[in-house]
Structure formats: structure tokens, C-alpha cells
């Protein structure tokens, strides 16, 4: 069974601070996805990283895929209240592995206090 461990589980920071969320596994994934979920809504895809070592930027958010494709991180610079939400990472299987399911982490709940 593949597992994705996210840390921290909860994070409460002041507006303007920087933060990093981690997503770790002992399994190798073909790609790693990050979603953000606001209260009462479904998760929304933020980014997919595919290549080991890949770094992607989305405004103040920086996503990195580990070289071995087992882990990923999300760094937010100068957090804003609009960044508040549940951040989920999800690992995708390799094509042909016989599975189409994503492995989800349990999420990091971020609160940015104005």
C-alpha cells in the first residue's frame, strides 16, 4: 500500500510569513499533484510535477518534486489570508501499472492570520 505523509498537519501563521509544507513517501510516483481545498468546497488542482527535481512556480507558491520522485514540497512566500485552506498532495501511479487511483496525503490545514 502506497502512503503519502504530509507535514505539518496544521499550520497557523501571520500574514507575510513564509512556510513550507512537505509530502513524503517511500514509494515512487510518476507525478505528484498539489490541490487546495477551501472549506465546504472540493479540492482544486494547483500544479502537477512530473520530472524528478522539477521546480514549478505559481506566483508566490513554489513546488518541488524530489529527485527520487518520492517526495515533494510546497513553499509559500509572504503568505496572505487568501492562501488559507487545506493543501493536499497526491501521487499518481505509472501508466500501465493497472491502477488509475491517486494516493492522497491527509492534508495540511493552513490558516493565515491577517
Amino acid at each position, binding site marked *: 500500500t502506497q502512503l503519502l505523509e504530509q507535514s505539518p498537519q496544521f499550520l497557523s501563521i501571520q500574514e507575510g510569513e513564509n512556510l513550507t509544507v512537505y509530502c513524503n513517501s517511500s514509494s515512487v510516483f*510518476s*507525478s505528484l*499533484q498539489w*490541490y487546495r481545498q477551501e472549506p*465546504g*468546497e*472540493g*479540492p*482544486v*488542482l494547483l500544479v*502537477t510535477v*512530473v520530472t524528478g527535481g522539477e521546480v514549478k512556480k505559481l506566483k508566490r507558491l513554489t513546488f518541488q518534486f524530489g529527485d527520487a520522485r518520492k517526495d515533494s514540497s510546497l513553499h509559500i512566500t509572504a503568505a496572505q489570508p487568501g492562501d488559507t485552506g487545506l493543501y*493536499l498532495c*497526491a501521487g*499518481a*501511479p505509472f*501508466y500501465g501499472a493497472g491502477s*488509475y*487511483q*491517486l494516493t*492522497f*496525503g*491527509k*492534508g495540511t490545514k493552513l490558516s493565515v492570520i491577517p
Partner: protein
Amino acid sequence: DVKVTQSSRYLVKRTGEKVFLECVQDMDHENMFWYRQDPGLGLRLIYFSYDVKMKEKGDIPEGYSVSREKKERFSLILESASTNQTSMYLCASTVLAGVYEQYFGPGTRLTVT
């Protein structure tokens, strides 16, 4: 834009009732999924379908069934609702190949009393 819609945002049902949750996607995706989300437990896969009339059990199928008569529509059925099925139910869809990015509906908050 991919759109996944769910029939209800909020639903209150009584114990023992049969409950239908419907999900429709407009992107011609082959795969569709039903999850439930509970605090501390994360997203748990109930059932998924990779084709019309095909279904596969996920991690927690007990007490649930599904129906996929058309490619765009995937229904989750609670045969006899129980209080431990009170949860947020999320539907998602994805293409059959590639990076399997999932597109989620807005969710249905089901309360069973």
C-alpha cells in the same frame, strides 16, 4: 474548463433511508471516483469506474453501491443510510492516461440523523 457537478451541496437524511448522490462531468473523462472526506482521515476512496457499466471497489465500499449507465454520470447509492455515513462526499473525474489529474465536484455534505 472541466466541470464536475454534484446533485446536492447539502443533504439531510434519516437512518435507514436510501440515498442517491449524483455526479456529472462534461469533459468526456473515462475515470470517475467517489470519495468521502472526514476530519483526520483524509480522502478515502469508496468506488471508482473506468468505463460505462464498470465499477471497482475502493478502500471503503461497505454500505455503498454505484451506478454508471452513461459515461458522464456516476451515482453513489447508500442502500440504508446510517449515522456513520455522515460525511462530505466528493466526486472526481480524470482521463484514462497521462498524469491522472483529478477534477473534483463541489462536494455534498450529507448528514444522517
